[in-house]
């Protein structure tokens, strides 16, 4: 197939920032690099990377395109789904626009139904993600990983070898270790950087397409922060240490993290998709079956679409201890059923098993609740 190389017709109507990000993607496309667009941490990146593709995250977290999405989708649907669909429809996101194939998974109900409509105007392939982590589920997911490889081969007219995949497994494991090294800096007390700055690095790393260079860049950043910390360990005063968990936040995390940090707290750990959840587990490099190894690693991700979802509790348990967490803030998106329902069991676990306070915030990508968010976070931190 021919990969998409030309800019969209409405390019000239875009603002400078958007033009810039379109041009960055455009440059890559001129080098004949295909784009595989993804929505979820369940997407087995190594398979697409093995064919030399850029894996681009399409989860959108701006309310700009929600009105366009609401022409097709219900209003009381998760804002992430609406925003993403809206960007796809309007060609306002370079990664959406340049994606030669979009791969979704049957994660939450809202997303899997949205993919059906998305498939009407974009090339969409949906992987069947099981709802549990049983041996039968793993068997299915392993087959789905192989099917994805075959789909990519036929769609792009290429061949993906097991050696190529194995190489990418090693690269991605290095990325995971580097990211873990980075966010583990926040174990320091007092902290070496603000949670909002940590998040920018975590979130931004997904858009660094040279995965081989990424660990080195992150390591250099870690060294720099460590050196600065040695010079001035008290740059940030001691404050209650907060762990943030819940829905994928992307750019939408901003207002919540700022509300916590402007009111006397310090976000030291993100369990969400852009945080520990994405980097905590590695693919087993010693497993001779690369597909089984990949499937096992990805299926273990503790997202609320799984039932039961023990791995999220297991990860939270470890993070709360390792990062000396004083309180947990769960940020959920409106109408995200799985996370909103699971909030109760997370609250029980945090209050009863870990003996620390928990607060849930349900929000969206608008700025209309910033006043209330601030009051809520200030009161929560006063309570600590």
């Amino acid at each position, binding site marked *: 197939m021919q990969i998409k190389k030309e800019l969209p017709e409405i390019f000239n109507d875009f603002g400078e920032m958007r033009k810039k990000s379109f041009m960055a993607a455009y440059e890559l496309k001129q080098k004949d690099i295909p784009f595989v667009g993804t929505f979820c941490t369940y997407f087995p990146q190594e398979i697409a990377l093995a064919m030399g593709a850029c894996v681009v995250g399409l989860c959108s977290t701006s309310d700009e395109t929600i009105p366009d999405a609401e022409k097709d989708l219900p209003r009381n649907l998760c804002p992430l789904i609406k925003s993403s669909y809206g960007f796809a429809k309007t060609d306002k996101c370079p990664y959406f626009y340049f994606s030669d194939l979009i791969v979704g998974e049957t994660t939450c109900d809202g997303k899997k139904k949205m993919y059906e409509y998305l498939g009407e105007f974009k090339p969409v392939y949906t992987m069947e993600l099981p709802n549990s982590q049983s041996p039968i589920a793993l068997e299915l997911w392993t087959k789905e990983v192989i099917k994805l490889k075959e789909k990519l081969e036929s769609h792009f007219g290429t061949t993906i070898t097991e050696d190529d995949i194995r190489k990418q497994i090693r690269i991605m494991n290095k990325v995971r270790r580097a990211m873990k090294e980075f966010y583990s800096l926040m174990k320091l007390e007092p902290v070496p950087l603000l949670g909002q700055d940590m998040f920018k690095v975590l979130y931004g790393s997904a858009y660094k397409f040279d995965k081989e260079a990424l660990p080195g860049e992150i390591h250099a950043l870690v060294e720099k922060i460590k050196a600065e910390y040695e010079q001035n360990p008290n740059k940030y005063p001691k404050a209650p240490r907060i762990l943030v968990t819940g829905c994928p936040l992307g750019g939408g995390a901003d207002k919540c993290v700022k509300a916590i940090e402007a009111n006397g707290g310090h976000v030291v750990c993100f369990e969400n998709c852009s945080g520990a959840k994405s980097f905590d587990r590695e693919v087993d490099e010693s497993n001779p079956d690369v597909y089984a190894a990949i499937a096992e690693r990805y299926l273990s991700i503790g997202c609320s679409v799984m039932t039961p979802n023990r791995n999220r509790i297991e990860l939270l348990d470890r993070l709360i201890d390792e990062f000396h967490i004083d309180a947990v803030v769960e940020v959920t998106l409106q109408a995200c059923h799985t996370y909103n329902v699971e909030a109760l069991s997370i609250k029980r676990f945090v*209050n009863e098993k870990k003996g620390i*306070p928990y607060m849930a915030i349900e929000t969206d990508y608008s700025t209309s*609740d910033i*006043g*209330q968010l601030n*009051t*809520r976070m*200030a*009161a*929560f931190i*006063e*309570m600590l």
Partner: protein
Amino acid sequence: MFTLGIDSGSTTTKGVLFDGEKIVRTGILPTSANPRDSIHKLYQSLYNDEVAYTVSTGYGRELLETADKQITEITCHARGAAFLNPTIRAVVDIGGQDCKAVLLDNGLNVVDFIMNDKCAAGTGRFIEVMMRILEEDIKNIDSFVEGHEPINITSMCTVFAESEIVSLLAKGADKGDIALGIINSICRRTSFFAQKLNLTGDIFFSGGLAQFEIFRSTLESYLKIPVHTSPLSQYAGAIGAAVIGYNKVKRQA
């Protein structure tokens, strides 16, 4: 020595002077379209040379630059309620534009809270709007609904409830029956909301509506837990602010 607590709410601005043992003066003003004016006016009417510390709270807490500290209404309501009645273990506050429930531990510290700040239903605003349609003054609500049979108000939304009441009036329904139905509606909703917290001990009911017995008794019947108020219920936030301020001064001394 006194401390001053000022609670800048969405509907009224309240202030109290505290001498370390009791509330020696109170003041209340409707919050105007310029809340900064209201909070400053109240501050000036209560402030004197013996005020050692001022704490502001409520949604307009940041508008009083001369305050020594700003504390959220959650913490202040809890502290104020615990001051007025140390036997309580939770606070339910129906404010002008939000509603909150706060859970306290045995040391009367806040351990959990929830807020409804997204919808006018379940707030004082709901009652305000409905009373306007009924052309009745909220001040006489207790006598107005006495001996009446509540009419079930089914709409959850303030705007829809408004049209539901308009059609009830058109059908010739009794205004007192409607008013009692409205009170049941808000108290039922508030109790469902508050029960999301694990309420066990006695409850203190604060906010402007707490001064009316019918709201207290209806809320109690839905919650099935003793609900207490105080003549100073409406000042709970301001009292909490003044008490916290007093403790700060004492600790500094």
